[in-house]
């Protein structure tokens, strides 16, 4: 088994997992398992929140080490699951090295749902959370509309190279401005419930949980980095909402 290709496979798996929002422990564990197929000892796999390092002491090449920067971070459960399956199959010997790296490429490009389904589901999620948090049905309707808009926004922000907190800010602005305008058209609608429901898909719930988990598991650097990211996203959502409210408010 070629050690260079093995390292590349481990880093590919780690990159997909880390950029889809897996926790540090899981990424390190997956990389470590993949590398341990050929090397029982002398394997080191490190994952920080923005980069990966993997090193191996190879018989043919001497000490090998590769690093990779991770530049985009989003949440994608499907990719985490499929990378998990691929790495499990590779470690147990069901997949060869070449086939595993082919599968990883497929995983990285595939998406389970069509864009339209995702956008509609974003609307449904917003409306649902509004109802969960004690909103009226008219609030849920408004949240559904703004949820659709936020779904479109999320879809385009994935493709474009916008700063990661920018889409949250625009989403917050849509929720805040939309809710105040809707309140002026339909005075019975509550602004709070519409806004709280609409910002649900933007909230950094996964990053927050992962940051606290990382800190408690001893991955201090990635934990604190993720906590800063969480705070920044939360503040940018709040800033967007505040901007939206003040523009059409009063």
């Amino acid at each position, binding site marked *: 088994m070629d050690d260079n290709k093995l390292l590349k496979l481990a880093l590919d798996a780690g990159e997909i997992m880390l950029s889809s*929002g*897996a*926790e540090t422990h*899981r990424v390190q564990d997956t990389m470590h398992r993949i590398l341990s197929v050929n090397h029982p000892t002398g394997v080191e796999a490190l994952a920080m929140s923005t980069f990966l390092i993997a090193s191996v002491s190879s018989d043919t090449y001497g000490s090998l080490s590769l690093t990779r920067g991770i530049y985009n971070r989003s*949440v*994608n*459960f*499907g*990719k*985490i*699951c*499929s990378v*998990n399956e691929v790495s499990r199959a590779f470690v147990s010997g069901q997949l060869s090295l070449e086939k595993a790296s082919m599968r990883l490429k497929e995983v990285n490009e595939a*998406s*389970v*749902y069509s864009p339209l*389904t*995702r956008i509609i*589901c*974003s609307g*449904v*999620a917003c*409306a*649902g*959370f509004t*109802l*969960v*948090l*004690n909103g009226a049905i008219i609030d849920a309707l408004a949240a559904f509309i703004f949820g659709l808009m936020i*779904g479109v926004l*999320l879809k385009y922000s994935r493709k474009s190279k916008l700063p990661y907190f920018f889409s949250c800010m625009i989403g917050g602005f849509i929720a805040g401005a939309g809710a105040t305008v809707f309140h002026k058209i339909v005075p019975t609608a509550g602004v*709070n419930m519409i*806004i*709280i429901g609409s*910002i*649900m*898909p933007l*909230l950094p*719930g*996964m990053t*927050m*949980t992962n*940051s*606290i*988990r990382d800190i*408690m*598991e001893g991955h201090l650097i990635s934990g604190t980095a993720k906590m800063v990211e969480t705070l920044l996203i*939360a503040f940018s*959502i*709040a*800033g967007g*909402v*505040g901007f939206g*409210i*003040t523009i059409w408010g009063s």
Partner: protein
Amino acid sequence: MTFLTILFEAFMAFWACIAFSVVFDAPKKELVFCGLSGGISWFLYAVLTLNLNPTMATLISTAVVATFSRFASYHRQAPSTLYHIPGIMPLVPGTMVYNTMATALSGQVLETYSNILLGLKLAGAIGAGSILILALPYSFFEIIPKRQKKAKKRVKAKARP
């Protein structure tokens, strides 16, 4: 009457969490479990807040959701994060993010700080509740699976003839 409202809210949380998992690309066959974990978390939270303060209720319901996700992860052979995050989603202090903004805009300084503090408390409760369960070793959740293995064998035995 309150019980009916809670049931309705939990039902809505179930569907909202399914929709939420679709937005983040969860595999189709796991969607029901993602929704279930959301429904459980909100149901518990709503029942517990009748008597307890929100922080404690969040802590307990997150711990239960984490337990559920660990068991589901063992049975369905998928990462526990997949079930854990949708379950936590209704409890994430989004209300605090909004309230902080609203009070800060209207110049109520004390309320702003108390909202920030409450938000941090809830976030800490979510983290603590999940880590309590997620830090347990994997073998701890293999207690029940014996039943599942038997069930699989039964299915196979039925399928063969």
